[in-house]
């Protein structure tokens, strides 16, 4: 007898949990959304959780997630959790439109929305699903799995709870950033939250989004998030994702960005927390003249594992893409970077730049890095590079030769290394906050 015969598949647990979940959501679904969820669950079950033999998951073993029985926290369990301070998570004095989600559920009493230009729809996705919003039905789950299909995306679609629904018609600007705070709080049983954001930005419109994942609890929980962004012609979208989960948390996320002609899109992703983390960032350049940036910083230590998979898909000519991922690893942390660049046959005059720089602060830290270029056009420029190293000894000596002691000099250089990605953050209070956070964390590494 083998264990596989006696041990139920990890997926079975989620099939059973889905029945409870459907009951919880009674009255807040439509036939369309029920069908969407059921199909996704079926897709998830057919594929099953990835194993390390899957090329896309070679360096990230998700068994710590699948071995645990996570389930969505019902809304009624939120009693009491919605109160309590969030002052640690308001990003300093940032003026924003803030939507707070506690253990997956929208929490209006902690949220703070400002007056917005006429015509903009901004609010809870779950509410718009419940009301049968046509825009939601037209766009939700249309793109999330297209570039890099993943069972976690299907799992999210089946179990998605809430998140931002944003629709900006053509030619409107939202001045203050939209701050999406996904907060995990202590719970009786291991919680799976499935945040889901749908963002539709019209032509010539502009918005700044901050996805922020944090925790007040130290128990084990699992965040499985999906964000879909559709940017119309000449739109400007700045996206930030701060992953500051607890160090006992599991976090999988997928961001899918569809861009039309002349869009300027920039995403900065900062990973500080989490025990096992996998981010998929996929950007499709579906028109000419697009400028797309995917930057990331991960700063990990102890037993943390962070895996960043990115795809830059140049589908049309004359687009520029920029990608810088920087990793600082201490302890016995494990990092993975996999950066794919597609240049489709049509995508002549593509200019794609990618780099992944890693700093290992200890002998036990490890990084697997892989740039992957698939180029089908002939008149393109693609550059990529990956470095793994220790601190520059010459720079260290230079600082010491000016009186700065060895530890401080090491701190200054490590911070400078990490700061490269942060300098691209345009939201001033956010950058200041992250700089302090990174500085504090480095001091402990």
């Amino acid at each position, binding site marked *: 007898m083998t264990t596989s015969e006696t041990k139920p598949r990890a997926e079975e647990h989620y099939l059973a949990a889905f029945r409870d979940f459907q009951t919880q959501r009674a009255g807040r679904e439509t036939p369309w959304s029920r069908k969407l969820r059921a199909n996704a669950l079926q897709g998830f079950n057919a594929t099953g959780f990835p194993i390390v033999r899957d090329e896309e998951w070679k360096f990230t073993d998700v068994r710590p997630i699948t071995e645990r029985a996570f389930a969505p926290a019902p809304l009624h369990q939120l009693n009491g959790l919605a109160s309590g301070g969030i002052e640690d998570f308001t990003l300093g004095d940032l003026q924003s439109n803030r939507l707070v989600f506690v253990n997956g559920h929208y929490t209006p009493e902690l949220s703070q929305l400002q007056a917005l230009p006429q015509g903009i729809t901004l609010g809870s996705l779950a509410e718009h699903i419940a009301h049968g919003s046509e825009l939601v039905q037209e766009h939700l789950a249309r793109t999330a799995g297209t570039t890099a299909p993943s069972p976690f995306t299907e799992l999210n679609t089946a179990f998605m709870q809430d998140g931002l629904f944003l629709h900006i018609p053509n030619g409107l600007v939202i001045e203050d950033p939209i701050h999406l705070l996904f907060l995990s709080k202590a719970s009786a049983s291991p919680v799976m939250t499935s945040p889901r954001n749908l963002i539709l930005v019209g032509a010539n419109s502009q918005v700044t989004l901050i996805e922020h994942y944090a925790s007040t609890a130290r128990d084990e929980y699992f965040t499985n998030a999906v964000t879909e962004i559709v940017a119309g012609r000449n739109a400007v979208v700045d996206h930030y994702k701060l992953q500051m989960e607890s160090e006992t948390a599991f976090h999988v996320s997928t961001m899918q960005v569809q861009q039309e002609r002349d869009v300027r899109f920039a995403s900065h992703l900062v990973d500080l927390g989490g025990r096992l983390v996998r981010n998929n960032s996929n950007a499709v350049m579906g028109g000419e003249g697009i400028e797309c940036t995917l930057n990331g910083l991960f700063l990990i230590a102890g037993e943390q594992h962070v895996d960043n998979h990115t795809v830059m898909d140049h589908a049309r000519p004359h687009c520029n893409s920029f990608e810088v991922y920087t990793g600082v690893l201490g302890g016995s942390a494990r990092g993975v970077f996999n950066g794919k660049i597609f240049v489709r046959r049509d995508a002549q005059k593509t200019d794609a730049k990618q780099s992944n720089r890693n700093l290992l602060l200890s002998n036990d830290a490890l990084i697997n890095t892989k740039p992957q270029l698939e180029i089908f056009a002939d008149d393109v420029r693609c550059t990529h590079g990956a470095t793994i190293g220790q601190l*520059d000894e*010459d*720079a260290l*000596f*230079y*600082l*010491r*030769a*000016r*009186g*700065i*002691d*060895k530890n*401080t*000099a090491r701190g*200054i*250089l490590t*911070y*400078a*290394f990490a*700061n*490269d990605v942060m*300098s691209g953050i345009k939201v001033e209070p956010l950058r200041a906050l992250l700089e302090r956070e990174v500085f504090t964390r480095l001091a402990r590494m």
Partner: protein
Amino acid sequence: MLLEIKDLHASVEGKEILKGINLAVNAGEIHAIMGPNGSGKSTLAQVLAGREEYEVTAGEVTYDGKDLLDMAPEERAAEGVFMAFQYPVEIPGVNTQVFLQAALNAVRKHHGEEEMDALDFLALIEEKSKLVEIDKSFRRRSVNEGFSGGEKKRFEVFQMAMLEPKLGILDETDSGLDIDALKVVANGVNTLKNADNAFVLVTHYQRLLDYIVPDFVHVLSDGRIVRSGGKELALELEAKGYDWIKGDEQAEAA
């Protein structure tokens, strides 16, 4: 005596570069150390600054009554030893002003002084940047990043002016400079010079000594000082070339 080097031997990767250096520098003096490529000039500067790749195998160095070789690089700097680098390293991401402030305050802390407040610090930058005719915009840039060769050298002298060392060692600061930049560097040293400090100019070319007049000139060859004299030695060397020294050595060996 500010600096006394006795029979200093040093190796890098097992190869002996310095083979018994003797040198005495008093406060108020300027010494020039000249010599052909590979003679050990830069190694001497690096050893004095505390570069760990160079292993001191014999000899001693006394600085201001203390054992210099026993001190970490940062301690030497705090005690007033400053080396202007031959090849200043670019440090992306480290803001120049932050760097200068950290350096200055580290040295002050070493002497039990308070950190300098921001306004005084800015005023000091203002004052010292005039001395080396350096554009103030450098403050917003990363240390040495994207600086031209001349800018890097001027920035070294600028740092020296900020830190006001007791012993300034200029490691080929004049190499690769146009005449205007050279004058700026020389003017910096001449302004900083006083009765309590000393400078050691490591140089390949006599040209620098037209602008900074040394009290002593030493010629280094194959890891030893083979000749010492006044400023006229530099001129003689310029006229006859380094082969003249090498010829001497061969004659001695024969």
